């Protein structure tokens, strides 16, 4: 099927904008870069919407959605069999992701014109945003796993650049390095996984890998390492790559620190798009994981479940508004991973898969909204800390309303989008794994609690002493908020079960009230507790914190994971691995080279006396040598 040739423009537009604004931006007024970026992203957004419209709603799909590759080219040809291609692949999840990425990116571009106004490096910011959008779109439409890996690294780089945007700030520099190094470690796993997978299957192509009933895994069962099959290894390693990008436990440490970047960046990269790349990767490889490596799928589920609980607990104790949101993102990503982990394949069985993608979509909308709202608050108050905020609802009505909508959505209040997607995840978990269901059920309550703790302490409570009266953000910032609030409310009504499913064939699903009603109740319970504790300023929270004592302190310090990592790297790896290696390098390797030089020098110093300049010495040496040779030849060789 043709007719989708224009989709190649969707990633090309941001690339061109990146090149133009990156190279020429400094010559223009800053606003020009912003306008070019925004208009370009708007175009890409429209193209994505058109693509999605004609893909999902054009024609009948009773037999399932086709995978369409409108464009593919050979990029590198190493040998006859090792060929790396670049292309555009359209199937339900990639089309959905195109919409997510371009929507959020467009909104963030628009918002940034207001938020970054007057910042030094305005043009640089927009250039990097375009670079990121290009990389993310390239990742989403990858036709093969190697193309995905390339763009995977590119999003890592642009994330690094944007986290370190305020490069004069040491904490931002440290955070960007941390994000880059942690994800690079995970990407090592991804790369090794790709290599094992392609060694077993002799292909990089998603089409061939995920085709139902494919025979390329024929010989895979016989290959194993340490008692685990090669494919399980490959999938687990690829999942480690995904876990690094999606900040799953224990590779989650970079995401909270990544909040050092400008807030729109957090909204775009660290809430809505890049961090779901890991989820997207697992979804992309889902048939392989599900059929060939069920053990790896178990890992996905449990890691997701643990991360969501762990992050939700930490989120309760944080005071930095962006960090609360960051841990909330972690928790929601855990949800998505868990849904993939408990999913089956095909029809109703694939509910978890569908729920994961659904939640990815709705989460992108409401979490971007939360971050942009937080940006709007920070813009007004000039602080990241909740104890510097209070009573803001009077000053910032639009931000207040949209933020409230986002909080209600994430808390799972009925008829908003988060309710539907979270409910599907809970149902899927209930069918497959009761333990994970219980975890998610608790997390649903915790989510409602910490979001409303944030909401009440920012918008209610007493006014603080502000440097100047907080004011509502300009229209260019509130329009994205309103748009995303609209999306948060209504995206739940999209018929996801018919559009995005594991086997690309739609199915009917209905509300499971056995799950929905308890989850609504626990959501409201969380909100109610937050209401009691934080609506009016009181000393109950402080007392509660004190009564929990050491547990509270541990949670406040994120269970000391940063410290553990630092201890492991500084004290153990540096001391017991790096230092001996450095010693070996300095003394053995270098020593060998220096030794050669030293011996040569000393030897020549010793024998330089032989070059006396006295002709007779040379003649003597010559004659003696000639005689010795003659004697040798006569008596030894003859």
């Amino acid at each position, binding site marked *: 099927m043709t007719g989708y040739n224009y989709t190649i423009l969707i990633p090309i537009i941001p690339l061109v904008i990146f090149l133009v604004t990156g190279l020429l931006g400094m010559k223009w007024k800053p606003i020009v870069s912003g306008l070019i970026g925004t208009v370009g992203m708007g175009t890409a957004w429209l193209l994505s919407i058109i693509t999605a419209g004609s893909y999902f709603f054009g024609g009948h799909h009773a037999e399932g959605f086709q995978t369409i590759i409108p464009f593919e080219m050979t990029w590198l040809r190493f040998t006859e069999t090792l060929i790396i291609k670049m292309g555009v692949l359209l199937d339900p999840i990639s089309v959905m992701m195109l919409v997510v990425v371009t929507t959020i990116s467009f909104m963030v571009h628009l918002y940034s014109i207001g938020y970054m106004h007057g910042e030094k490096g305005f043009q640089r910011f927009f250039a990097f945003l375009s670079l990121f959008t290009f990389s993310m779109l390239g990742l989403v439409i990858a036709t093969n796993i190697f193309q995905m890996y390339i763009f995977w690294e590119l999003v890592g780089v642009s994330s690094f650049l944007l986290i370190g945007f305020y490069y004069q700030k040491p904490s931002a520099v440290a955070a960007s390095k941390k994000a880059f190094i942690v994800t690079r470690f995970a990407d090592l796993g991804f790369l090794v996984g790709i290599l094992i997978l392609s060694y077993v299957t002799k292909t990089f192509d998603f089409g061939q890998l995920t085709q139902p009933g494919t025979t390329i895994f024929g010989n895979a069962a016989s290959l194993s390492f340490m008692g685990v099959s090669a494919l399980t290894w490959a999938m687990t390693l690829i999942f480690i790559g995904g876990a690094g990008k999606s900040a799953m436990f224990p590779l989650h440490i970079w995401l909270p620190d990544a909040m050092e970047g400008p807030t729109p960046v957090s909204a775009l990269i660290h809430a809505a798009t890049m961090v779901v790349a890991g989820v997207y990767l697992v979804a992309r490889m889902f048939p392989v994981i599900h059929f060939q490596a069920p053990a790896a799928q178990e890992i996905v589920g449990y890691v997701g479940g643990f991360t969501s609980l762990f992050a939700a607990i930490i989120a309760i104790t944080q005071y930095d508004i962006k960090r609360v949101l960051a841990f909330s993102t972690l928790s929601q990503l855990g949800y998505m991973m868990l849904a993939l982990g408990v999913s089956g394949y095909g029809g109703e069985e694939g509910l978890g898969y569908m729920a994961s993608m659904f939640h990815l979509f709705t989460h992108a909308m409401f979490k971007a909204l939360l971050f942009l709202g937080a940006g709007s608050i920070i813009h007004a108050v000039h602080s990241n800390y909740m104890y510097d905020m209070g009573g803001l609802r009077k000053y910032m009505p639009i931000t207040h309303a949209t933020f409230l909508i986002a909080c209600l959505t994430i808390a799972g209040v009925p008829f908003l989008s988060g309710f539907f997607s979270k409910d599907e995840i809970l149902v899927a978990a209930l069918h497959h794994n009761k333990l994970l269901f219980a975890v998610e059920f608790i997390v649903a309550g915790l989510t409602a609690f910490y979001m409303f703790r944030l909401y009440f302490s920012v918008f209610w409570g007493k006014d603080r002493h502000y440097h100047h009266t907080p004011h509502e953000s300009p229209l260019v910032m509130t329009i994205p908020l309103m748009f995303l609030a609209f999306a948060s409310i209504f995206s739940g009504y999209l018929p996801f079960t018919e559009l995005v499913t594991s086997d690309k064939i739609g199915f009917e699903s209905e509300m499971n009230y056995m799950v929905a009603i308890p989850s609504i109740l626990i959501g409201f319970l969380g909100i109610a507790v937050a209401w009691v504790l934080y609506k009016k300023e009181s000393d109950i929270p402080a007392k509660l914190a004190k009564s929990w004592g050491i547990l509270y302190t541990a949670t406040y310090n994120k269970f000391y994971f940063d410290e553990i990592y630092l201890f492991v790297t500084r004290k153990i790896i540096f001391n017991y691995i790096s230092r001996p290696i450095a010693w070996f390098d300095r003394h053995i390797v270098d020593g060998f080279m220096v030794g050669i030089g030293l011996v040569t020098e000393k030897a020549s110093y010793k024998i330089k006396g032989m070059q006396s*300049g*006295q*002709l*007779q010495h040379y*003649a*003597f040496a010559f*004659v003696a040598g000639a005689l010795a040779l003659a004697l040798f030849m006569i008596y030894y060789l003859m």
Partner: protein
Amino acid sequence: MIQGIPIEHFLVVSTIMFFIGVCGFIIRRNLITMLMAVELILNSVNINFVVFNRYLYPDQLQGHFFSLFIVGIAAAEASVAIALIINIYRKLKNIDVENVNELKF
């Protein structure tokens, strides 16, 4: 053919001359003595050429011609060498070979 004298006698003489020349060249410090030692080496070679020519290929002349060449070149060499030695003497007031090290440094 020189009656009754076998080739070995000539060769012994030329070998003795050669080694006297080598020893003189290595041991003596006086430049003129060294020049004389070189002449001895050359002439021992001359003897060899002539003798081998005479004993091994009596109907050919290459050996004789070679020795004549060597005599001629030795004469030229001696004149150049003595000119050098005179100049060295003028400069250094002696002709000890160990003192001729100006160019070394």
